[in-house]
């Protein structure tokens, strides 16, 4: 592997010789030579079966940039524990060399320089190559491919086709089961229609019919792989009707329902399961707690919080596997079953370097196919960014700064609120912003950008409420998003305090005045979970703003201060 210094030296040398424009492509060529597909995918096989996990693809069919967070705080017992480690601390914890491909894939350290060196990641055609190769290496009958959900939402084409493009692509990839979260934002009828057409299981042990209070989905399924009986229990995102519009799925109730999982584990064991897997969209901390409380789960394939960890976290003899997001990683977990139980494992979090892994030709053609009707829209250039645009981080991200700026200016508001979603791709300084890039940051089924007045007290209540969704000391009360992004208003947050006491010093940035609980402020925002929210779609608001201001350059955001 190259050290960062070698890369920089090479880049400098070439730019001196060939002009600065060539530096990037030359060093990328080196990266491609240094990294090979074999190197990325080779793994000494272990045991008789393999689980392949991919999750939170968010409809990203093509390679993308995705910057991992630089701030991801853990609260209470999980403070400083993975995944609540970032940057240099993460590198040290996992013994990863700064500037290496793994450092680029897993952290935000030197992100822009490394992104230019190592290129985009993901792409479902590359993912297909990896899956096919694992199936070929291990034997298709010995492999289970499991999709953790948040697959059908997150792009313009997914939104336009109401998830069909992703269903087409995933059907070609042939997973054995999936669970869901954002899938449900297409509404009851559409979700049912899509699920009925799936050639594999959609599992959701924790989804209940509201009327009869009985399970609404298949809870778990037994598979035979590598001669072993493998039970897969599905767990959808427990707070779907709270974090997303309940009115779109009025007949379904969710929740963590750990006693149901425990019952399924018991049921599966009594039916001879030698391995029990929880395919989960709980989020990492929820799954860590669940693993400590529910015995008998061998593997939790976790999702939702978009964490990528190079090693399993082991809790109560359960391997908790976090496979990242946006198609950036594929997890391969080889398992050795002896005498009816798990005796050993070998794990590899495979980073999908798009310039290194050969696209699968069939999948590439299928992707082109589903995108073809929209290609002219997708490639339309709206502007250019001089700054790095990204979203992930507990408190703010530059893409949300841009969205908040657009909301304030286009909707003539004092304060803007943008939800703390964890999906949304990254753009490097100097990149053009295409229509597709914009929609990657906001494609969803409830995009109305509202304009309203809120009292200072209500603003405080909202901030406290969202803060508690993120920083409640009990993971079972967390919802797995980041803090709501705020434009036009600054505040101080102490994550370790209790609800009602975390937020202070709320200040209207335009005037420097303190937010008055009794006074009304004009607030613009988007993605309200309330039915009948009115306003233009957020992507129109931001597109108008970029069209008027085609070169994006954002002031450094210092509006959130961390206390405690």
């Amino acid at each position, binding site marked *: 592997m190259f050290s960062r210094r070698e890369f920089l030296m090479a880049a400098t040398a070439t730019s001196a010789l060939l002009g600065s424009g060539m530096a990037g492509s030359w060093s990328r060529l080196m990266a491609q030579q240094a990294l090979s597909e074999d190197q990325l995918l080779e793994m000494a096989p272990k045991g008789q079966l393999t689980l392949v996990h991919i999750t939170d693809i968010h409809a990203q069919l093509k390679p993308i940039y995705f910057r991992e967070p630089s701030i991801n705080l853990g609260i209470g017992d999980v403070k400083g524990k993975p995944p609540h480690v970032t940057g240099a601390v993460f590198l040290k914890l996992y013994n990863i060399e700064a500037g290496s491909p793994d450092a680029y894939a897993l952290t935000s350290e030197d992100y822009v320089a490394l992104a230019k060196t190592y290129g985009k990641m993901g792409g479902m055609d590359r993912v297909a190559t990896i899956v096919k190769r694992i199936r070929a290496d291990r034997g298709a009958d010995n492999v289970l491919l499991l999709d953790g959900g948040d697959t059908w939402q997150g792009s313009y084409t997914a939104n336009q086709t109401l998830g069909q493009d992703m269903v087409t692509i995933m059907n070609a990839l042939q997973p054995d089961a999936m669970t869901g979260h954002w899938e449900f934002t297409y509404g009851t009828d559409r979700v049912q229609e899509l699920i009925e057409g799936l050639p594999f299981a959609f599992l959701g042990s924790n989804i209940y019919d509201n009327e009869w209070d009985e399970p609404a989905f298949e809870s778990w399924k037994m598979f035979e792989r590598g001669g072993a009986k493998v039970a897969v229990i599905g767990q959808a995102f427990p707070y779907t009707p709270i974090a997303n519009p309940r009115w779109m799925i009025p007949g379904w109730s969710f929740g963590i329902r750990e006693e149901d999982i425990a019952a399924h584990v018991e049921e599966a064991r009594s039916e001879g399961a030698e391995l029990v897997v929880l395919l989960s969209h709980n989020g990492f901390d929820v799954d860590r707690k669940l693993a400590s409380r529910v015995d008998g789960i061998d593997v939790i394939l976790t999702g939702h919080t978009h964490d990528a960890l190079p090693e399993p976290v082991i809790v109560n003899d359960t391997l908790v596997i976090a496979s990242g997001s946006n198609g950036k990683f594929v997890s391969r977990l080889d398992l050795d079953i002896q005498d009816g139980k798990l005796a050993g494992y070998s794990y590899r979090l495979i980073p999908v370097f798009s310039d290194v892994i050969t696209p699968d030709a069939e999948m590439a053609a299928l992707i082109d196919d589903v995108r073809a009707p929209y290609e002219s829209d997708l490639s339309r250039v709206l502007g250019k960014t001089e700054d790095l645009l990204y979203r992930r981080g507990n408190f703010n991200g530059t893409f949300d700064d841009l969205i908040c700026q657009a909301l304030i200016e286009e909707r003539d508001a004092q304060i803007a609120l943008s939800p703390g979603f*964890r999906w949304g791709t990254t753009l490097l300084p100097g990149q053009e912003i295409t229509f597709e890039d914009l929609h990657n940051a906001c494609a969803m089924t409830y995009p109305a950008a509202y304009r309203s007045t809120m009292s200072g*007290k*209500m603003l405080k209540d909202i901030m406290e409420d969202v803060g508690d969704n993120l920083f409640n000391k009990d993971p079972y009360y967390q919802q797995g998003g980041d803090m709501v992004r705020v434009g036009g208003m600054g505040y101080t947050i102490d994550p370790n305090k209790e609800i009602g006491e975390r937020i202070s010093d709320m200040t209207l940035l335009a005037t420097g005045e303190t937010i008055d609980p009794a006074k009304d402020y004009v607030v613009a925002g988007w993605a309200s979970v309330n039915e009948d929210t009115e306003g233009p779609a957020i992507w129109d608001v931001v597109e108008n703003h970029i069209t008027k201001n085609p070169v994006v350059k954002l002031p450094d955001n210092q509006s959130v201060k961390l206390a405690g």
Partner: protein
Amino acid sequence: MTITRRQLFGLTAGAATVLAFNPKMSFAAADETDAAIKAFTGGAEPAAGTVSLDTPEIAENGNTVPVGVSVDSPMTADSFVESVLILADGNPSPAVATFHFTAMSGVAEAKTRIRLAKTQNVIAVAKMNDGSTYIDRKEVKVTIGGCGG
């Protein structure tokens, strides 16, 4: 203006915030809760265990929160659950329901849906035929919601 303030309140914060910041009312409810438990147990301090509540950690809809209660009891003529009191300590009036059982009930289980004005504890107190009492307490969070993902 695209959504009115009233709509926003009605659909998100609901009555929750109004009550949440009225300390006088909260204290009154807490006192009333303690008094109701004492009246039910005859002044005794109920023990933990035996009775268990099944509630969501976070309510999907504060206006109709599913609450289940079950008591571990053989339900025979010699040993059975007489009644279970359900309280919500943050509601304007904490009393929710009292379920009555006999040995003929077979099992001591009940389910209902209750309204919760804000984040608070739901409490179940079970009284056995020998006069012993048991308590379980679960916090149910009622959120404004809307920013997960």
